[in-house]
């Protein structure tokens, strides 16, 4: 097979890819758009994870270390299967914040920090350079295979020349398709389709070689298994932690590699694509690794001693005369290399342009965002230059490390460099406490340790560092030896470097975050990132904008282009209900504009540019407080509502209680009225009947006197009743005026006994005058009235032959208490609670001769005076206890005792 044919096929293939990409870009606007952005294409585009390293290197890896190669595909499988944990979050955040790259994500999360974006960009470029060199190397090696068979063997100079041409060709292709649109969020549908096609080509090629090897050369699966058991890699010998370390490394790199972040997150048009990719991509990975071990084993057996196992995929079919298959394998490897390089350079160029070139360009032109020309032009140019620059770097690395380590070793070093972003990335999306300072320090630390322990040694001894430094440490500092940091000796170099770099990285990140204080914007972004699922997009409201809409439009036009910018502004104006092009510069609008711009130039730059125009430049603490205030107001309002409803509940309850009380009172009032009527009617009836009798003439004078006496008695009784009622009413309404004087208790009791008819009624009264020597200052007349009532009660109700009333004065709990105890039968238990109520009479009415208001009046009087009267059920007879007012001068501002 001639080398020229190979060149022809390669160019044809590239032309075909151009065609596909053009076609896809055209169709992106039509009905096919949905399919083009669907899960199938998405899954296939992820296949850029499988680079030439996989296509050629995996077989070499397997031929050297057996099964270990498979770990590189196990990690990504775990990430995809567990996409719910990290990828879903990343995709959601990237869409909400219009993230353009992994550097943009870190920068945006930590307060749109330009510095962080720059650090991540530098790290990413450094880590990716060997990887790009690796692709150039594998493509040139595969060229050289064909060149060897068709003519003389290639010299190093031939390899260099072909590598240069490959690099130039890739640069042209990438520039043509990768920088046609500036908005990275406007997805590169052409590129995506092209790499999807390449994904299919490389899978088909590898599977074809595998099938040919298993069934064509080895004689079936069981024969292959037997050959494996007989080969030098028959034993499964995982080396000290490498197995676990590489699974972890590949999983982390799958997320952190700039090109993977590009296809996984940035180019992902729909979160639901992950549902399918979560199982379909692992299928792809499994198929890619399924035939690796058989090819390696059969290659080891059939190929001559000393042939490069990295090229078995190509050389094995060729040695069997299968030129067509070899050509397919070549195209597979070519596809793997080119697709990786294209996406990688686009991702890196976006980062370099957005985080290094454009910010610098803005800085050196002091006029600021408003008058500094068309940013779009700068941006596109920056990206094109970046693409060329990155490929140049890769070529340079290829030249320096020519003939260096095996493909797999370079790949793993590159991976370890890329995953230094992992702590900051996970912190960014899961931990609100992560700060800019911590992230920056962690990244730099991890990067430095990686450079020292993995990157520099990867060039080999005496390339960048002398053998002496490698074995004894710099300046004889034994604990700084690149392969035994802090004296940790005897470890596998990859595990050692990975462990130290990530450990120190994470530690410094954590400590730095804990001990630093974030800027307001960092905290704001932290919430937006970490709580992305609780946030509705655009939840901010802050008012600091003094920009004019036309200024913003001028700036936006230079970044987005005239038509797009005007459409955006017009739409915003329409949403605000305004005519014309210029919307009001509301905080919402500024935020939205900033996000749109971030899609083109990255969050940090967009923020800086909008900030220049809106004066504020950043969210101030006041703005945050304003937002917090608004939230607090809403909270307060809802609390108020709650309080109001609680208050209404209380009011309703109080109303219900009042209603119950009123009903009860109304019933009592009715009862009282009927009682009163009854009380009034009885004497009235007798008065009327006796006066009728008197009207009849034929009465003897004696009868006359008798009936007149009855009428008089009844009238007196009526008067007394009315007096009592009036008295009670006055007392109850609190209208009574008290006449306060000072007097002796014994005098008062003397007066009371006299008024009650003394001991003439047959009642014997026992007293202890010594104890009654108490001075009282109160309304003495009222107090006497109480005593009279109580004594009169004893006179009335104590029906014994020898009625006795003991009046006992004592001190009880510091108050003067007077017990009036008779020797009668007392009051039955069930009536005791009723005796102080109005009209409470339980015994013979006639004998009592009162309306039953006496004790009620007593209670009212004592209530007024600040004392009380109660019935003492523990004595033998009826016992009333009068507790005198404390220093009885107090006229209580007593409550209005309603009729109860």
């Amino acid at each position, binding site marked *: 097979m001639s080398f020229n044919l190979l060149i022809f096929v390669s160019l044809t293939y590239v032309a075909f890819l151009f065609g596909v990409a053009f076609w896809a870009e055209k169709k992106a606007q039509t009905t096919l758009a949905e399919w083009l952005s669907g899960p199938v294409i998405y899954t296939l585009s992820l296949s850029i994870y499988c680079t030439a390293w996989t296509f050629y290197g995996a077989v070499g890896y397997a031929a050297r270390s057996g*099964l270990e190669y498979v770990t590189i595909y196990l990690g990504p499988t775990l990430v995809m299967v*567990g996409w719910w944990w990290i990828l879903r979050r990343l995709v959601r955040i990237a869409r909400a914040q219009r993230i353009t790259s992994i550097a943009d994500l870190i920068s945006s999360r930590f307060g749109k920090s330009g510095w962080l974006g720059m650090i991540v960009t530098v790290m990413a470029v450094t880590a990716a350079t060997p990887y790009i060199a690796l692709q150039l190397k594998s493509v040139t090696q595969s060229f050289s295979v064909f060149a060897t068979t068709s003519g003389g063997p290639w010299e190093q100079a031939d390899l260099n020349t072909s590598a240069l041409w490959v690099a130039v060709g890739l640069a042209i292709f990438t520039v043509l398709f990768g920088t046609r649109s500036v908005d990275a969020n406007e997805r590169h549908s052409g590129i995506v389709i092209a790499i999807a096609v390449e994904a299919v080509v490389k899978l088909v090629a590898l599977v074809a070689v595998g099938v040919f090897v298993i069934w064509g050369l080895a004689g079936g699966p069981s024969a292959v298994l037997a050959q494996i058991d007989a080969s030098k890699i*028959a034993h499964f010998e995982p080396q000290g932690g490498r197995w*676990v370390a590489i699974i972890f490394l590949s999983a982390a790199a799958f997320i952190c590699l700039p090109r993977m972040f590009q296809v996984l997150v940035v180019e992902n048009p729909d979160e639901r694509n992950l549902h*399918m990719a979560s*199982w379909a991509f692992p299928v792809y990975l*499994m198929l890619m690794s*399924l035939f690796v*071990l058989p090819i390696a084993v059969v290659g080891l057996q059939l190929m001559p001693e000393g042939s490069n196992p990295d090229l078995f995929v190509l050389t094995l079919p060729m040695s069997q005369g299968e030129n067509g298959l070899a050509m397919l394998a070549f195209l597979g490897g070519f596809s793997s290399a080119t697709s990786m390089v294209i996406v990688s350079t686009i991702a890196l160029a976006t980062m370099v342009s957005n985080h290094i070139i454009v910010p610098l360009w803005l800085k050196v032109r002091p006029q600021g965002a408003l008058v500094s020309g068309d940013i779009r032009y700068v941006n596109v140019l920056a990206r094109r230059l970046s693409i060329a620059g990155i490929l140049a770097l890769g070529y340079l690395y290829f030249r320096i490390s020519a003939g260096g380590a095996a493909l797999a070793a370079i790949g793993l070093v590159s991976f370890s460099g890329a995953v230094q972003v992992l702590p900051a990335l996970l912190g960014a999306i899961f931990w609100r406490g992560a700060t800019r300072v911590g992230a920056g320090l962690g990244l730099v630390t991890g990067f430095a340790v990686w450079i020292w322990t993995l990157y520099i040694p990867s060039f080999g001894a005496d390339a960048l560092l002398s053998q002496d430094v490698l074995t004894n440490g710099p300046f004889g500092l034994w604990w700084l030896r690149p392969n035994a940091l802090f004296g940790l000796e005897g470890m596998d170099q990859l595990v050692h470097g990975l462990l130290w770099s990530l450990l120190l990285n994470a530690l410094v990140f954590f400590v730095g975050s804990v001990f630093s204080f974030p800027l307001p914007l960092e905290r704001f972004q932290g919430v937006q990132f970490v709580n992305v*699922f609780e946030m509705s997009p655009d939840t901010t409201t802050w008012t600091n904008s003094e920009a004019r809409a036309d200024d913003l439009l001028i700036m936006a036009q230079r970044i987005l282009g005239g038509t797009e910018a005007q459409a955006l502004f017009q739409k915003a104006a329409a949403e605000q209900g305004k005519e014309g092009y210029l919307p009001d510069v509301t905080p919402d609008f500024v935020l939205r504009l900033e996000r749109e711009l971030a899609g083109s130039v990255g969050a940090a730059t967009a923020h800086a540019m909008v900030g220049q125009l809106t004066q504020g430049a950043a969210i101030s603490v006041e703005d945050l407080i304003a937002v917090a205030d608004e939230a607090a107001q809403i909270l307060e309002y809802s609390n108020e509502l709650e309080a109001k409803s609680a208050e209404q509940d209380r009011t309703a309850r109080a109303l219900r209680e009042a209603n119950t009380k009123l009903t009860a009172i109304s019933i009592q009032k009715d009862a009282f009225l009927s009682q009163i009527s009854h009380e009034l009617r009885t004497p009235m009836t007798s008065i009327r009947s006796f006066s009728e009798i008197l009207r009849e003439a034929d009465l003897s004078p004696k009868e006359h006197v008798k009936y007149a006496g009855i009428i008089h008695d009844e009238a007196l009784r009526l008067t007394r009743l009315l007096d009592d009622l009036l008295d009670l009413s006055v007392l109850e309404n609190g209208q009574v005026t008290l006449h306060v004087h000072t007097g002796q208790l014994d005098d008062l009791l003397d007066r009371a006994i006299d008024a009650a008819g003394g001991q003439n009624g047959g009642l014997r009264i026992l007293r202890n005058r010594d104890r009654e020597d108490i001075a009282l200052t109160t309304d003495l007349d009222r107090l006497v009235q109480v005593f009279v009532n109580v004594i009169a009660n004893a006179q009335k109700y104590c029906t014994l032959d020898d009625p006795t009333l003991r009046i006992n004065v004592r001190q009880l709990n510091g108050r003067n208490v007077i017990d009036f105890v008779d020797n009668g039968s007392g009051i039955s238990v069930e009536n005791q609670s009723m005796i102080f109520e109005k009209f409470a009479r339980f015994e013979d009415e006639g004998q009592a001769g009162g309306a039953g208001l006496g004790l009620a009046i007593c209670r009212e009087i004592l209530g007024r005076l600040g004392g009380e009267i109660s019935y003492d059920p523990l004595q033998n007879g009826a016992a009333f206890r009068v507790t005198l007012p404390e220093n009885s001068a107090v006229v209580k501002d007593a409550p209005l005792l309603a009729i109860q």
Partner: protein
Amino acid sequence: MPVYLARASYRQRRLRDVMRVLPFVGFLAWIMPTMAGILPASSTVGLYIFAVWMILIASSALINRRLIRQADDSLVDTSSTA
């Protein structure tokens, strides 16, 4: 948000739980061969690793297809994390 869910959404959440556990199960299964005292042959380990791979893929496919079908049916926002 209700405390107790209807049967369908309850199932959906448990499916998501399975999906969350799956990577850890896969990781443990895949590092298992390195823990054996006497290391088995490459061919045996190879077969084992690919078997685990297929089981993971099949489980993931079943779960995700069901989840996306339900999401399409009800247009439920699947973002809530409980």
